[in-house]
Protein backbone atom coordinates (compact mmCIF):
# COMPACT_ATOMS: atom_id res chain seq x y z
CA UNK A 1 0.00 0.00 0.00
CA UNK A 2 1.29 3.44 -0.77
CA UNK A 3 1.31 5.93 2.09
CA UNK A 4 -1.47 7.79 0.32
CA UNK A 5 -3.68 4.69 0.27
CA UNK A 6 -2.76 4.02 3.87
CA UNK A 7 -3.95 7.46 4.86
CA UNK A 8 -7.19 6.90 2.95
CA UNK A 9 -7.78 3.65 4.82
CA UNK A 10 -7.18 5.44 8.10
CA UNK A 11 -9.57 8.23 7.23
CA UNK A 12 -12.24 5.74 6.15
CA UNK A 13 -11.72 3.77 9.38
CA UNK A 14 -12.13 6.90 11.49
CA UNK A 15 -15.25 7.99 9.64
CA UNK A 16 -16.69 4.48 9.95
CA UNK A 17 -15.90 4.42 13.66
CA UNK A 18 -17.59 7.74 14.28
CA UNK A 19 -20.51 6.52 12.15
CA UNK A 20 -20.92 3.38 14.22
CA UNK A 21 -20.75 5.47 17.37
CA UNK A 22 -23.47 7.77 16.05
CA UNK A 23 -25.62 4.82 15.06
CA UNK A 24 -25.39 3.35 18.56
CA UNK A 25 -26.16 6.72 20.12
CA UNK A 26 -29.22 7.20 17.91
CA UNK A 27 -30.36 3.69 18.69
CA UNK A 28 -30.00 4.36 22.38
CA UNK A 29 -32.07 7.52 22.13
CA UNK A 30 -34.88 5.47 20.65
CA UNK A 31 -34.78 3.15 23.60
CA UNK A 32 -36.84 3.94 26.59
CA UNK A 33 -34.15 5.63 28.63
CA UNK A 34 -36.70 7.12 30.94
CA UNK A 35 -37.00 5.37 34.14
CA UNK A 36 -40.57 6.14 35.04
CA UNK A 37 -43.93 5.20 33.68
CA UNK A 38 -46.68 7.59 32.73
CA UNK A 39 -50.20 7.03 34.03
CA UNK A 40 -51.17 5.98 30.49
CA UNK A 41 -48.54 3.26 30.54
CA UNK A 42 -49.71 2.12 33.94
CA UNK A 43 -53.24 1.79 32.62
CA UNK A 44 -52.05 -0.07 29.56
CA UNK A 45 -50.45 -2.60 31.90
CA UNK A 46 -46.92 -1.81 30.77
CA UNK A 47 -45.67 -1.24 34.27
CA UNK A 48 -44.82 -4.35 36.26
CA UNK A 49 -46.78 -4.61 39.50
CA UNK A 50 -44.49 -7.02 41.27
CA UNK A 51 -41.66 -4.65 42.01
CA UNK A 52 -40.88 -1.05 42.84
CA UNK A 53 -41.41 1.34 39.95
CA UNK A 54 -41.60 5.06 39.39
CA UNK A 55 -44.61 6.88 38.07
CA UNK A 56 -44.35 10.43 36.81
CA UNK A 57 -47.01 12.97 36.05
CA UNK A 58 -48.72 16.15 37.17
CA UNK A 59 -50.62 16.42 40.41
CA UNK A 60 -54.23 16.91 39.39
CA UNK A 61 -55.75 20.14 40.66
CA UNK A 62 -57.97 19.63 43.63
CA UNK A 63 -56.96 16.03 44.15
CA UNK A 64 -54.65 16.50 47.14
CA UNK A 65 -56.23 15.23 50.36
CA UNK A 66 -54.57 14.98 53.74
CA UNK A 67 -55.87 12.41 56.19
CA UNK A 68 -56.51 14.21 59.47
CA UNK A 69 -54.40 12.98 62.34
CA UNK A 70 -51.86 11.19 60.22
CA UNK A 71 -49.09 11.87 57.77
CA UNK A 72 -50.95 10.13 55.01
CA UNK A 73 -51.82 12.07 51.88
CA UNK A 74 -53.53 11.02 48.71
CA UNK A 75 -53.46 12.71 45.34
CA UNK A 76 -53.98 11.86 41.70
CA UNK A 77 -51.29 11.84 39.06
CA UNK A 78 -52.30 12.67 35.52
CA UNK A 79 -50.77 12.98 32.10
CA UNK A 80 -53.99 14.45 30.70
CA UNK A 81 -54.85 11.06 29.27
CA UNK A 82 -55.12 8.78 32.24
CA UNK A 83 -54.88 9.15 35.99
CA UNK A 84 -53.39 7.12 38.79
CA UNK A 85 -54.42 7.59 42.41
CA UNK A 86 -51.46 7.75 44.75
CA UNK A 87 -51.21 7.37 48.49
CA UNK A 88 -48.18 8.43 50.45
CA UNK A 89 -47.20 8.62 54.07
CA UNK A 90 -44.57 11.14 54.97
CA UNK A 91 -43.50 14.73 54.50
CA UNK A 92 -44.07 16.14 51.05
CA UNK A 93 -41.31 18.27 49.55
CA UNK A 94 -41.72 22.06 49.74
CA UNK A 95 -42.28 22.48 46.07
CA UNK A 96 -45.01 19.87 45.97
CA UNK A 97 -48.03 21.68 44.60
CA UNK A 98 -51.09 20.85 42.65
CA UNK A 99 -50.47 21.26 38.97
CA UNK A 100 -46.78 20.50 39.41
CA UNK A 101 -44.82 17.61 38.01
CA UNK A 102 -43.78 14.94 40.48
CA UNK A 103 -42.26 11.50 40.42
CA UNK A 104 -43.45 8.90 42.88
CA UNK A 105 -41.53 5.73 43.65
CA UNK A 106 -43.40 2.77 45.03
CA UNK A 107 -45.54 -0.22 44.13
CA UNK A 108 -48.91 -0.73 42.56
CA UNK A 109 -51.47 -2.03 44.99
CA UNK A 110 -54.44 -2.93 42.86
CA UNK A 111 -55.45 0.31 41.18
CA UNK A 112 -53.77 2.45 43.76
CA UNK A 113 -50.11 3.40 43.70
CA UNK A 114 -48.49 3.26 47.13
CA UNK A 115 -45.57 5.63 47.10
CA UNK A 116 -42.53 5.24 49.30
CA UNK A 117 -40.99 8.45 48.08
CA UNK A 118 -42.30 11.52 46.30
CA UNK A 119 -39.99 13.88 44.47
CA UNK A 120 -41.05 17.29 43.29
CA UNK A 121 -39.25 19.93 41.43
CA UNK A 122 -39.73 23.51 40.54
CA UNK A 123 -40.50 23.96 36.88
CA UNK A 124 -38.60 25.98 34.39
CA UNK A 125 -40.96 28.89 34.62
CA UNK A 126 -40.15 32.15 36.23
CA UNK A 127 -42.94 34.67 36.51
CA UNK A 128 -44.39 37.22 38.88
CA UNK A 129 -47.27 36.01 41.07
CA UNK A 130 -49.83 38.09 39.14
CA UNK A 131 -48.86 36.40 35.93
CA UNK A 132 -49.08 33.02 37.59
CA UNK A 133 -52.54 33.88 38.84
CA UNK A 134 -53.69 34.99 35.45
CA UNK A 135 -52.47 31.74 33.96
CA UNK A 136 -54.33 29.64 36.51
CA UNK A 137 -57.78 29.54 34.89
CA UNK A 138 -56.12 28.69 31.63
CA UNK A 139 -54.33 25.77 33.23
CA UNK A 140 -57.44 24.53 34.93
CA UNK A 141 -59.23 24.63 31.62
CA UNK A 142 -56.47 22.62 30.05
CA UNK A 143 -56.54 20.20 32.93
CA UNK A 144 -60.10 19.29 32.35
CA UNK A 145 -60.02 19.50 28.59
CA UNK A 146 -60.23 16.11 27.02
CA UNK A 147 -57.64 15.12 24.49
CA UNK A 148 -55.02 17.61 25.51
CA UNK A 149 -51.98 17.22 23.31
CA UNK A 150 -50.04 14.18 24.35
CA UNK A 151 -46.81 16.02 23.79
CA UNK A 152 -47.71 18.37 26.58
CA UNK A 153 -46.83 15.76 29.15
CA UNK A 154 -43.62 14.69 27.54
CA UNK A 155 -40.92 14.96 30.14
CA UNK A 156 -38.00 17.11 29.21
CA UNK A 157 -34.81 15.30 30.09
CA UNK A 158 -33.67 16.66 33.40
CA UNK A 159 -33.60 20.36 33.40
CA UNK A 160 -33.24 22.74 36.26
Amino acid at each position, binding site marked *: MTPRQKRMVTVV*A*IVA*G*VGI*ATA*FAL*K*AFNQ*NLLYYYSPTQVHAGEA*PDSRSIRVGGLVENGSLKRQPGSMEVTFVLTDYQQTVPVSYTGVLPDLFREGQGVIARGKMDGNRFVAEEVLAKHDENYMPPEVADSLKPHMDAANSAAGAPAAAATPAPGST
Partner: protein
Amino acid sequence: MSAVRTPTLAAARLVFQRDMTLAWRRWDEVAQPLIFYVVVTTMFPLATTPDLSALREIGGGVVWVAALLASLLALESLFRADVEDGTTEQWVLSGQPLGYLLLAKVAAHWVLTGLPLVIMSPIVGTGLGLPTSVWGVLMFSLLLGTGTLSILGGIGAALTVGVRRGSVLLSLLVLPLAMPLLIFGSRAVTMQMDGDSPAGPLQLLAAIFFMALSLGPLAMSAAIRISVEN
Protein backbone atom coordinates in the same frame (compact mmCIF):
# COMPACT_ATOMS: atom_id res chain seq x y z
CA MET B 1 20.52 -5.90 1.71
CA SER B 2 17.13 -4.91 0.47
CA ALA B 3 14.57 -5.33 3.15
CA VAL B 4 10.83 -5.76 2.92
CA ARG B 5 8.89 -3.04 4.65
CA THR B 6 6.75 -4.36 7.52
CA PRO B 7 3.02 -3.94 6.89
CA THR B 8 1.36 -1.67 9.43
CA LEU B 9 -0.82 -4.39 10.89
CA ALA B 10 2.18 -6.66 11.37
CA ALA B 11 3.98 -3.81 13.10
CA ALA B 12 1.01 -3.25 15.40
CA ARG B 13 0.98 -6.99 16.16
CA LEU B 14 4.65 -6.82 17.11
CA VAL B 15 3.95 -4.02 19.57
CA PHE B 16 1.14 -6.08 21.07
CA GLN B 17 3.31 -9.19 21.27
CA ARG B 18 6.15 -7.29 22.84
CA ASP B 19 3.97 -6.00 25.67
CA MET B 20 2.59 -9.48 26.24
CA THR B 21 6.12 -10.87 26.45
CA LEU B 22 7.17 -8.12 28.84
CA ALA B 23 4.10 -8.67 31.01
CA TRP B 24 4.76 -12.39 31.11
CA ARG B 25 8.16 -11.65 32.62
CA ARG B 26 6.72 -9.13 35.05
CA TRP B 27 3.46 -10.84 35.94
CA ASP B 28 3.55 -9.57 39.52
CA GLU B 29 3.13 -6.00 38.28
CA VAL B 30 0.25 -7.06 36.09
CA ALA B 31 -1.54 -8.69 39.00
CA GLN B 32 -1.46 -5.60 41.21
CA PRO B 33 -4.45 -3.71 39.77
CA LEU B 34 -6.51 -6.88 39.96
CA ILE B 35 -5.69 -7.34 43.63
CA PHE B 36 -6.45 -3.67 44.21
CA TYR B 37 -9.82 -4.17 42.52
CA VAL B 38 -10.78 -7.02 44.83
CA VAL B 39 -9.52 -5.22 47.93
CA VAL B 40 -11.42 -2.02 47.15
CA THR B 41 -14.69 -3.86 46.68
CA THR B 42 -14.12 -5.63 49.99
CA MET B 43 -13.99 -2.28 51.73
CA PHE B 44 -17.55 -1.32 50.90
CA PRO B 45 -19.32 -4.01 52.93
CA LEU B 46 -16.97 -3.27 55.80
CA ALA B 47 -17.63 0.46 55.64
CA THR B 48 -21.37 0.29 55.10
CA THR B 49 -23.26 -2.88 55.90
CA PRO B 50 -22.69 -6.59 55.42
CA ASP B 51 -26.37 -7.00 54.53
CA LEU B 52 -26.35 -8.36 50.98
CA SER B 53 -29.81 -7.10 50.12
CA ALA B 54 -28.75 -3.58 51.08
CA LEU B 55 -25.43 -3.89 49.27
CA ARG B 56 -27.22 -5.03 46.14
CA GLU B 57 -28.64 -1.52 45.71
CA ILE B 58 -25.18 -0.03 45.28
CA GLY B 59 -23.38 -3.17 44.07
CA GLY B 60 -23.28 -2.22 40.41
CA GLY B 61 -21.92 1.21 41.22
CA VAL B 62 -19.30 -0.16 43.60
CA VAL B 63 -18.00 -2.68 41.07
CA TRP B 64 -17.78 0.11 38.51
CA VAL B 65 -16.00 2.57 40.77
CA ALA B 66 -13.51 -0.11 41.80
CA ALA B 67 -12.88 -1.10 38.18
CA LEU B 68 -12.36 2.54 37.24
CA LEU B 69 -9.82 3.12 40.00
CA ALA B 70 -8.02 -0.14 39.33
CA SER B 71 -7.66 0.67 35.63
CA LEU B 72 -6.41 4.12 36.49
CA LEU B 73 -3.79 2.62 38.77
CA ALA B 74 -2.41 0.58 35.92
CA LEU B 75 -2.48 3.44 33.44
CA GLU B 76 0.10 5.56 35.14
CA SER B 77 2.99 3.41 33.97
CA LEU B 78 1.57 2.80 30.50
CA PHE B 79 4.07 4.84 28.51
CA ARG B 80 6.61 5.78 31.18
CA ALA B 81 9.22 3.07 30.60
CA ASP B 82 8.94 3.31 26.83
CA VAL B 83 9.43 7.07 26.82
CA GLU B 84 12.30 6.92 29.30
CA ASP B 85 14.30 4.29 27.43
CA GLY B 86 13.68 5.87 24.03
CA THR B 87 11.40 3.19 22.60
CA THR B 88 8.57 5.60 21.75
CA GLU B 89 11.12 7.78 19.98
CA GLN B 90 11.88 4.85 17.70
CA TRP B 91 8.15 4.25 17.18
CA VAL B 92 7.71 7.85 16.08
CA LEU B 93 10.61 7.36 13.65
CA SER B 94 9.55 3.90 12.46
CA GLY B 95 7.74 5.23 9.42
CA GLN B 96 4.62 3.45 10.64
CA PRO B 97 1.53 5.50 11.46
CA LEU B 98 1.99 6.09 15.18
CA GLY B 99 -1.72 5.84 16.02
CA TYR B 100 -1.88 2.16 15.08
CA LEU B 101 1.15 1.27 17.17
CA LEU B 102 -0.24 3.12 20.18
CA LEU B 103 -3.62 1.49 19.73
CA ALA B 104 -1.90 -1.90 19.75
CA LYS B 105 -0.08 -0.91 22.93
CA VAL B 106 -3.36 0.14 24.54
CA ALA B 107 -4.99 -3.10 23.37
CA ALA B 108 -2.25 -5.08 25.10
CA HIS B 109 -2.73 -2.99 28.20
CA TRP B 110 -6.44 -3.68 28.12
CA VAL B 111 -5.95 -7.44 27.74
CA LEU B 112 -3.60 -7.36 30.72
CA THR B 113 -5.64 -5.14 33.04
CA GLY B 114 -9.14 -4.51 31.71
CA LEU B 115 -9.99 -8.06 30.73
CA PRO B 116 -9.02 -9.61 34.08
CA LEU B 117 -11.27 -7.06 35.80
CA VAL B 118 -14.13 -8.08 33.54
CA ILE B 119 -13.53 -11.76 34.23
CA MET B 120 -13.29 -11.21 37.96
CA SER B 121 -16.40 -9.02 38.14
CA PRO B 122 -18.98 -11.81 38.73
CA ILE B 123 -17.05 -13.04 41.74
CA VAL B 124 -16.65 -9.54 43.11
CA GLY B 125 -20.28 -8.76 42.29
CA THR B 126 -21.48 -11.84 44.14
CA GLY B 127 -19.73 -10.60 47.23
CA LEU B 128 -21.77 -7.43 46.89
CA GLY B 129 -25.04 -9.28 46.58
CA LEU B 130 -25.49 -8.95 42.82
CA PRO B 131 -27.68 -11.81 41.54
CA THR B 132 -26.41 -14.13 38.82
CA SER B 133 -28.98 -12.65 36.45
CA VAL B 134 -26.92 -9.47 36.13
CA TRP B 135 -23.55 -11.15 35.50
CA GLY B 136 -23.90 -10.91 31.77
CA VAL B 137 -24.79 -7.22 31.77
CA LEU B 138 -22.14 -6.44 34.36
CA MET B 139 -19.43 -8.12 32.32
CA PHE B 140 -20.58 -6.69 29.04
CA SER B 141 -20.80 -3.16 30.39
CA LEU B 142 -17.33 -3.51 31.92
CA LEU B 143 -16.03 -4.92 28.65
CA LEU B 144 -17.07 -1.77 26.80
CA GLY B 145 -16.25 0.52 29.70
CA THR B 146 -12.74 -0.71 30.46
CA GLY B 147 -11.96 -0.67 26.75
CA THR B 148 -12.98 2.98 26.49
CA LEU B 149 -11.16 3.76 29.69
CA SER B 150 -7.93 2.25 28.36
CA ILE B 151 -8.10 4.59 25.37
CA LEU B 152 -9.08 7.68 27.38
CA GLY B 153 -6.45 6.81 29.94
CA GLY B 154 -3.95 6.25 27.15
CA ILE B 155 -4.48 9.85 26.07
CA GLY B 156 -4.05 11.04 29.64
CA ALA B 157 -1.00 8.87 30.22
CA ALA B 158 0.57 10.07 26.99
CA LEU B 159 0.01 13.69 28.01
CA THR B 160 1.39 13.30 31.51
CA VAL B 161 4.24 10.89 30.89
CA GLY B 162 7.00 13.47 31.04
CA VAL B 163 5.69 15.70 33.80
CA ARG B 164 6.15 16.00 37.52
CA ARG B 165 3.60 14.27 39.74
CA GLY B 166 2.17 12.63 36.65
CA SER B 167 0.01 10.09 38.46
CA VAL B 168 -2.11 12.58 40.39
CA LEU B 169 -2.46 14.73 37.31
CA LEU B 170 -3.48 11.69 35.28
CA SER B 171 -6.37 10.99 37.65
CA LEU B 172 -7.43 14.63 37.53
CA LEU B 173 -7.49 14.54 33.74
CA VAL B 174 -9.07 11.15 33.19
CA LEU B 175 -11.67 10.79 35.94
CA PRO B 176 -13.99 13.60 34.78
CA LEU B 177 -13.81 12.25 31.24
CA ALA B 178 -14.69 8.79 32.53
CA MET B 179 -17.84 9.86 34.40
CA PRO B 180 -20.22 8.97 31.57
CA LEU B 181 -18.86 5.40 31.60
CA LEU B 182 -19.52 5.12 35.29
CA ILE B 183 -23.03 6.49 34.92
CA PHE B 184 -24.09 4.32 32.00
CA GLY B 185 -22.28 1.24 33.25
CA SER B 186 -23.73 1.16 36.72
CA ARG B 187 -27.11 2.19 35.32
CA ALA B 188 -27.13 -0.80 32.96
CA VAL B 189 -26.55 -3.11 35.91
CA THR B 190 -29.30 -1.50 37.97
CA MET B 191 -31.77 -1.61 35.11
CA GLN B 192 -31.10 -5.29 34.55
CA MET B 193 -31.60 -5.93 38.25
CA ASP B 194 -34.88 -4.01 38.19
CA GLY B 195 -36.09 -6.12 35.29
CA ASP B 196 -35.81 -3.33 32.72
CA SER B 197 -33.97 -3.73 29.47
CA PRO B 198 -30.42 -2.40 29.86
CA ALA B 199 -30.11 -1.90 26.10
CA GLY B 200 -30.17 1.90 26.29
CA PRO B 201 -27.16 2.48 28.53
CA LEU B 202 -25.26 -0.39 26.89
CA GLN B 203 -25.75 1.18 23.49
CA LEU B 204 -24.53 4.49 24.83
CA LEU B 205 -21.46 2.75 26.22
CA ALA B 206 -20.89 1.20 22.80
CA ALA B 207 -21.28 4.62 21.18
CA ILE B 208 -18.66 6.14 23.47
CA PHE B 209 -16.37 3.16 22.91
CA PHE B 210 -16.43 3.49 19.14
CA MET B 211 -15.98 7.23 19.42
CA ALA B 212 -12.90 6.73 21.58
CA LEU B 213 -11.62 3.94 19.33
CA SER B 214 -11.75 6.08 16.22
CA LEU B 215 -10.59 9.44 17.56
CA GLY B 216 -8.48 8.35 20.54
CA PRO B 217 -5.42 7.23 18.54
CA LEU B 218 -5.21 10.69 16.94
CA ALA B 219 -5.08 12.37 20.33
CA MET B 220 -2.69 9.74 21.69
CA SER B 221 -0.20 10.11 18.87
CA ALA B 222 -0.32 13.90 19.13
CA ALA B 223 0.34 13.58 22.85
CA ILE B 224 3.21 11.11 22.43
CA ARG B 225 4.87 13.34 19.86
CA ILE B 226 4.80 16.12 22.41
CA SER B 227 6.18 13.81 25.09
CA VAL B 228 9.24 12.68 23.12
CA GLU B 229 10.23 16.29 22.53
CA ASN B 230 12.84 17.13 25.02
